[in-house]
């Protein structure tokens, strides 16, 4: 079973949190902080498994993570999951994100966290691995986003039309969007 999936950036800012076991919000934040603390001090050339982390788990649990450019993808799993399998699953997930967002970068995750959730839902369900075939995942995600489009999306057309006007009134037009090359480079790893 997967107990939690966390995505945060190099500064520990959460980009997606998905707990498959209930934790109160402040506990969730504490877990994120602790996990970030554990993971961020590790070099890139050390192994991707971590035992411990007192908040989540216990001895049966492991943190398995991968670091892509500015983001950490961390899965907290118990001993029924294969370590190498989960590493591959993270790779599949990131590759899927890459396909769905076309060259995914941190900004995609920042502004479309809901979409990332929907993609994740096709990979892992309730803490169990649902699908590992990337094409199947992408196909299901696309069918559903087409359905959403046909319904007009969450904030439908009128709101978008005026958003331009709205932005003119705002003094703070986002300046920090250009953070250089933050694309998550998905290295092509040897297949599973």
């Amino acid at each position, binding site marked *: *079973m997967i107990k939690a999936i966390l995505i945060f950036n190099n500064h520990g800012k*959460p980009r997606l949190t998905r707990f498959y076991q209930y934790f109160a919000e402040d506990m969730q934040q504490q877990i994120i902080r602790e996990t970030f603390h554990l993971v961020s001090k590790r070099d890139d050339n*050390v192994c991707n*498994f971590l035992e411990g982390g007192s908040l989540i788990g216990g001895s049966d649990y492991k943190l398995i993570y991968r670091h892509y450019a500015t983001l950490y993808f961390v899965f907290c799993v118990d001993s*029924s999951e294969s370590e190498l399998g989960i590493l591959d699953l993270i790779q599949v997930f990131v590759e899927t994100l890459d396909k769905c967002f076309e060259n995914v970068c941190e900004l995609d995750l920042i*502004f479309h*966290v809901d979409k990332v*959730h929907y993609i994740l839902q096709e990979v892992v369900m*309730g803490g169990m*691995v649902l699908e590992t075939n990337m094409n199947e995942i992408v196909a299901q995600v696309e069918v559903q986003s087409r359905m959403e489009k046909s319904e007009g999306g969450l904030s439908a057309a009128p709101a978008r039309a005026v958003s331009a006007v709205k932005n003119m009134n705002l003094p703070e037009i986002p300046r920090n969007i250009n953070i250089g090359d933050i694309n998550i480079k998905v290295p092509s790893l040897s297949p599973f």
Partner: protein
Amino acid sequence: MALKKVKGSIDRIFDKNLQDLVRGIRNHKDDEVKAKYISTCIDEIKQELKQENISVKANAVCKLTYLQMLGYDISWAAFNIVEVMSSSKFTYKRMGYLAASQSFHDGTDVIMLTTNQIRKDLNSPNQYDTGVALTGLSCFVTPDLSRDLANDIMTLMSHTKPYIRKKAVLIMYKVFLKYPESLRPAFPRLKEKLDDPDPGVQSAAVNVICELARRNPKNYLSLAPLFFKLMTSSTNNWVLIKIIKLFGALTPLEPRLGKKLIEPLTNLIHSTSAMSLLYECVNTVIAVLISLSTGMPNHSASIQLCVQKLRILIEDSDQNLKYLGLLAMSKILKTHPKSVQSHKDLILQCLDDKDESIRLRALDLLYGMVSKKNLMEIVKKLMLHVDKAEGTTYRDELLTKIIDICSQSNYQYITNFEWYISILVELTRLEGTRHGHLIASQMLDVAVRVKAIRGFAVSQMALLLDSAPLLSGNMQRKGICEVLYAAAWICGEFSEYLEDPVQTLEAMLRPKVSTLPGHIQAVYVQNAAKLFAAVLRNGQQGSQEGAAVQETIQLLTDQLPIFVQSADLEVQERASCFLQLVKYIQKLQQKDVDVGEEVTALFAGELNPVAPKAQKKVPVPEGLDLDAWINDPPSEPESEDEKSKSAFAKEEPQQPRQRHREVDEKELARRREERKQEQANNPFYIKGSTPAPKGYQDTMGVEHIPVVQIDLSVPLKVPGMATSDKYVKIEEERRKRDRAEKGKKKEKKKKREKRSRGDRRNESGPESEEDIRPAQTVDIVTEEMPENALPSDDEDRDPNDPYRALDIDLDKPLAESETLPVRKHRAPDPVKSPAEDGEKPEAPQELKKKSKKEKREKEKKEEKKSKEEKKKKKHRHEAEEDPAGEKEKAPPPAPEMEAVQSPSKSKQEVPPASAPAEDLDFWLSNEPVPSKSQEAVVATSKSTTEEPADPGQGSDIEDAKSSKHKKKKQKKEKEEKEKKKKKQHRVPNQEEEESVQNGTVEEEEDPLPPMSNYCLLAENTYIKMVCDVQGNLQDSSRVVVSVIFENKSSSFLKSMEFNVLDSLNAKLQRPEGAGPHDSLSVPFQLPPGVSNEARFVFSVQSIVMPQKLKGTLTFIVKSDDGSSHEKLDFKLHFTCTSYLTTTPCYSDAYAKLLESADMKGSSARLQGVGLPFQHLLAKICFHHHFSVVEKINSCASLYSRSIQGHHICLLVKYTDQTVTIDAKCDESSLLGNLLDEIKLTFSQS
């Protein structure tokens, strides 16, 4: 109204969407400003949620979900989330479910409101609505929701869309957890899903069952054959990994399973290229080897293989593999330490790795690798690492590991305790360690338990105390000063070994001591008293000593006041007591009264270690009820409690006293007397007022331990602090000398060894190590346990384990009461079966309006049938003379539940309770373990493998055999030897049989004759090849050919190469880079008499026609005379049957299929079939990969599917030895060929 709407949409223009919110938050860099901004946003969201427009609400909920991630509590919006969930638009619904899955939990009260909404979504015609609901539900399912929705979810498990099926299967695990009662009714269907045509669904089912089985493995043992089959046929690595992990959990329960697994697992290890799979295989092989405690010779090969593969992993540059390799290695270590010890170099090398997790793993390994021989060496290396280590955490870890390694299993590996004490002393010099306490407890433990070392320990501790002031500045900060606690105690307690007690006493009373923590000072004071007693005792011996006593008294009266002023109460109290004692003694001494003995008596008696669980294990004496009141319970406990709470504390003690007085004085006296008697007889009662006998008194336990004084080969007195290094040398010399001595004085040694062995509890080291005699007489005083201690070790089990509820026997037949609760409109009719009545008209309302009528009719039929069946069963029960009355009492297998699950299955008999277990035994007994039942089985199989005879004949043979058994045992043994060969390729046959059970009807009366699809491919004097061709479910153009090679000769066969001449239509799949005519090498060699199976994959384009391929097998025969190259030609026959895959189908789907226009019909007649209908069906199902959809009397409908998705429907009627088969298929030529093949099957038999 209209105006309101317009106003609403105008307002919406200024609403923020998620992107605006995120942007806004990002623009407010400062934390305070950001918090302010977010709180205004939350206010806006609250406004938006008040609007009627659902899209506004959805947008607001979307923003809330984002805020939840940032740590804001959004539980106040739970009701709005439910509103959004119930929107009819997919976009909003999905948003709502996402928000719910992020924020709902068992305590969310609005969850109650969602039941109907979720049910509606689950049954929605849009598969994505259903999918979204399932996904959401998987995160917030509660016990109530599970109970109410279990049945709907179970229906979804046979949804037409695999997308829904796999989700429904996965969520069942969550439902089981929350509502354990659902496990048994739902399990049969879950099991069915293991054979689902969609690999995703199959994988989900494997996932769920593995998860269940991991918690309660014993209930799932009976599924082992099924999983075994999956393991050998699946190509999906995810599924394989899960199954292999599951087997790892099952093998400890069933060693026979392990034996069966070794071979396929080792094959996988050799063949797979996926590291993850390789790793899991190695892990499971290790688990198997652990479970097979009796080391069979060929298993050492598997161990070697594992260790060798792990070494490759550890040597890999990928840190992940290195880490996992070490992890797995530590598992091997537990049972096969020797095979790991040979890789000590590698592991020590890992200690230098830059990755801390790897270093820690390596340390773990070292823990298990030590032996008496290498302990000193390993610890020496570790000490070097301690010096080198950079971070304190890692250094602390090293320190604890050193101590763990040395102290493990009762100091089993320590041969020289002086060395260990000096290691401990060296460790105290470490800067900045947090583990002073650990070192201290080790010192105490060793000093108390190893008597012979006390002298040495005391001398070292005295030195430590002496040098304490030098270190104390450092010590105090870091907690290493804890060791002084141990040092002071040891010096005090064993003061008789002290060289110069006065000097030590001085060291303990230095003014600097008062800077130490209170509890250590207290120990100092107390032990100073003990030392003083020792000085007094010595003082009696001579006048010269008398002066020393006077000096000591002076010293004490000078120094103790410092402690009397201490802020620590404990120190103060002890010091003032001691000071008064000293003053009193001083007075007595002036009167020339000899007080030495009396003072010594104050500290008499020896402390023995008590086992940690000793207290728990004291048995409760008979007749003692710990819960009963000793006196009558107070009459008004409640009001008194209230009083005492509100009243002043003064009053409290008076109340109970008054109550006690009520008890009769005489009665009290009598009881007191009784109690005293009892205490006197009870060895465990600590007597308060025993007068201390003179001198040191040994307790019972110690007296019984023979203390042998050995002339120590190492000088006990060490000038200055000991260094551990020299002990390594000394030890080596000692061992040499020992060896020499041993040769000379065999007789003397015998005695000694016997004793020392008797003293030690764990003497399980490798044989050669027993020769190493410990330097000291290591009478480790075993921990005391009360007599007749309870031998229970169950304490460790956690009663609150949530998975305990799922510990449910799944093999028992379902009882009638075990159905999933179903929503009902009316009160259920008690006569009808509740499940059927309730569910059917309700659940799929929207889904199948058209087929409703049909369904109703069918249901009626079904009900009738199930009733009929009940009647039948009754008849049978009456007819059978049931020897065991229990059987009748047991609830009859409930057909009702089955009926709900799948109409097709309702006609099947639920197998009797013991069947699965028997199956398992049968399946497992294929190993060469001679047993009667197996013998019989082999006998029948022998007669039936080539030619499946009719059951009468089969059972006759069986009968004959079993009677033979009784008469001619010797003959049987001979036969057995012959059969061993056969047994080996019966393994796959068994697997096939499993599928028969799945696909067809089981009847209790006529056991099905064993069948095999393996047919002879070719044979010569050296080798026999039999093969089976099967379609691959996961790929529409692939066929897997399993070939069993059997070595018939007495020579060794090797370098087997398999080649087939490809046709246009069918091609052998060769590895990349190989030419179209290259042959494939068979991945094993065959020793004489052995058979093994290999699989070859063919790609096929058209499957409507059967075809034959020519091929050759070349191999080298190696015998004593030399080797020769041999060749065997064969013809591989791809029948149309081999393109079919057994696929279950439900009758409603089947009916639809038959109605569709593009199905073409055909029929066939078979005459003179002597088989009972039952067996006929089984045969068709087995040999032609069909599954029974429905069976009524002597008429049955069957279904199968080709790997390219052609549907084939058969209607088989049977009258008077004539079988008519009406068939429909969407590909007529395939159908024609298939019918021909079926005819052929029956004409052969």
